[in-house]
């Protein structure tokens, strides 16, 4: 009984929260460097999922036939497509608007999201896709709950991404330059930092993280579809980023886990017939609670 009410939702919450965390870290990266909330972040994940699926299973496009490449090559393609979409967004939308008000860039990212959704509908109509787990094999049982290898990979990758980015920002020249650019762009230029390169790095990295989430999460959550990232990931990831402090990579990591846990605990312990939407309300209550106690979020400072 304990497994159903507590252990199962905790494990599922950790896995799902790890996915939210990946997208949230991407949001934080963009926010740190441009001070803009990226509405297209969810679709970085969806495009990654689509690319991963199609390259794994093979597809035809404009008289070109792409053969089946298998799950791992498909995963690499998914991450690469996410990164490429991030880079294209930077080069053709964000950079030309760099001298415009932030709200203009914000609206532009929303336009990118809707354009990506339209592209996904063209690629996959409105049906759902099931992508295979990267690592199969017998699940192992923890406190009576089956745990898939894919779920462990998701958590492991989030930890790896969080630690890697914390080291990047805290201890490398390039990471410092990225932070400096967000704080004082003119002074950064005067130090010889090329702002366009930092911007490309940030958007490319955020795109790759989104693509990674799109590769890893659908096998765990069941399926993906057009606009999957925006409808199923973006709000949760945004909440995670705000909970974490919006500029903190470890904060986004913790925020993602917290949102995943709260959602799944509410889902398992509140009767959905009497209280539909309990998971979303529970997350909202936690968000408000955290912001009342710590208005800057859990780790609301540069990291």
């Amino acid at each position, binding site marked *: 009984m304990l497994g159903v009410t507590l252990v199962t939702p905790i494990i599922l919450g950790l896995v799902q929260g790890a996915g939210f965390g990946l997208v949230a870290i991407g949001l934080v990266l963009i926010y740190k460097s441009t001070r803009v909330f990226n509405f297209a972040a969810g679709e970085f994940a969806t495009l990654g999922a689509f690319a991963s699926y199609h390259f794994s299973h093979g597809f035809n496009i404009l008289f070109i036939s792409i053969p089946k490449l298998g799950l791992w090559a498909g995963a690499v393609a998914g991450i690469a497509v996410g990164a490429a979409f991030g880079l294209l967004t930077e080069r053709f939308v964000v950079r030309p608007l760099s001298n415009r008000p932030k709200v203009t860039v914000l609206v532009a990212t929303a336009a990118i999201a809707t354009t990506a959704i339209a592209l996904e509908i063209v690629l996959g109509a409105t049906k759902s896709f099931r992508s295979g787990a990267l690592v199969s094999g017998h699940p192992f049982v923890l406190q009576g709950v089956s745990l898939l290898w894919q779920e462990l990979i998701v958590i492991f990758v989030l930890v790896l991404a969080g630690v890697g980015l914390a080291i990047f920002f805290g201890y490398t*020249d390039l990471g*410092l*330059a990225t932070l*400096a650019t967000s704080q*004082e762009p*003119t002074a950064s*230029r*005067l*130090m*010889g930092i090329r702002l366009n390169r930092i911007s490309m790095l940030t958007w490319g990295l955020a795109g790759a993280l989104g693509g990674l989430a799109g590769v890893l999460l659908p096998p765990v959550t069941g399926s993906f579809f057009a606009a999957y990232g925006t409808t199923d990931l973006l709000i949760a990831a945004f909440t995670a980023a705000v909970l974490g402090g919006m500029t903190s990579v470890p904060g986004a990591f913790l925020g993602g886990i917290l949102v995943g846990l709260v959602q799944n605990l509410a889902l398992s312990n509140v009767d959905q017939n009497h209280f539909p939407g309990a998971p979303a309300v529970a997350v909202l209550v936690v968000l408000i609670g955290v912001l009342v106690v710590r208005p800057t979020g859990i780790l609301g400072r540069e990291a």
Partner: protein
Amino acid sequence: MSVLLEIRGLEVGYGAIPVLQGIDFDVEEGKTTVLLGLNGAGKTTTVGAISGLLKPWGGTISFEGERIDGLEPPALVDRGVTLVPEGRRVFPALSVAQNLRLGSWTKRKRGAELKDAEEKVYDYFPILLERRTQMAGTLSGGQQQMLAVGRGLMSLPKLILIDEASLGLSPALAKTVFNIVDRINADGTTVIIVEQNVGVLKHADNALVMEKGEIVYRGSGEELRSGDELRRTYLGGGDEEAAPAVARPTPAPAQAAAQASAPATSDDEPRSRRRSRARRAGKPGTG
């Protein structure tokens, strides 16, 4: 002395509005040149064009005999031209040490030289060593100015341009910053200081006075400083260390006391003698 920087017919503007109307001047290697003038005279525009922040409309800028007009700041910093911008613009959420580290961005592979440069910065500004782990945004205005200059020095410049070094600083602090500029210059870096504060003339080899985008006076710092008529004509008077080019209210009693109690630095000593004495003493210009 050879000419390090040569400006010919420089024209710069914003949008469709011209600001610099074809100015010419030279900066000699190893000297301190002061660019004086009132607000809107075109001083910041001039250093903005030299440092690559603004694209010239016309004319040429040559550094060490090579054209540099139109180059981007990274290429200029790499060649040894660094601007310390007006308003300090330190990275507020990074520590003092991290700010300094970013100053050496284009030279980050030159480990040994950077180590020496860092030691020198901490020698010029010991307070920065004390505060090295403190976030730059929490420093006082004077400390931020020191950090901005120190960060500029970490790029191993041959020519450092300091825009409004004394803006917002108390007279005593402004004096301290100017004295450090003397030491930086004595240690071999050519300096251009943009100022409204005529007190800087004591620290200048050469002075240029700008008005409405043109250079209306050029001569030695000493000449401009000692010539009452000249100073009145071009700068509107003022003969105190912190007296600005524009009329400023009489300092408050506390400020005046700070000025009076500031370390004596043989204010009336000519610039050339101060520098040679400073070199001999090993701690130039600190008096």
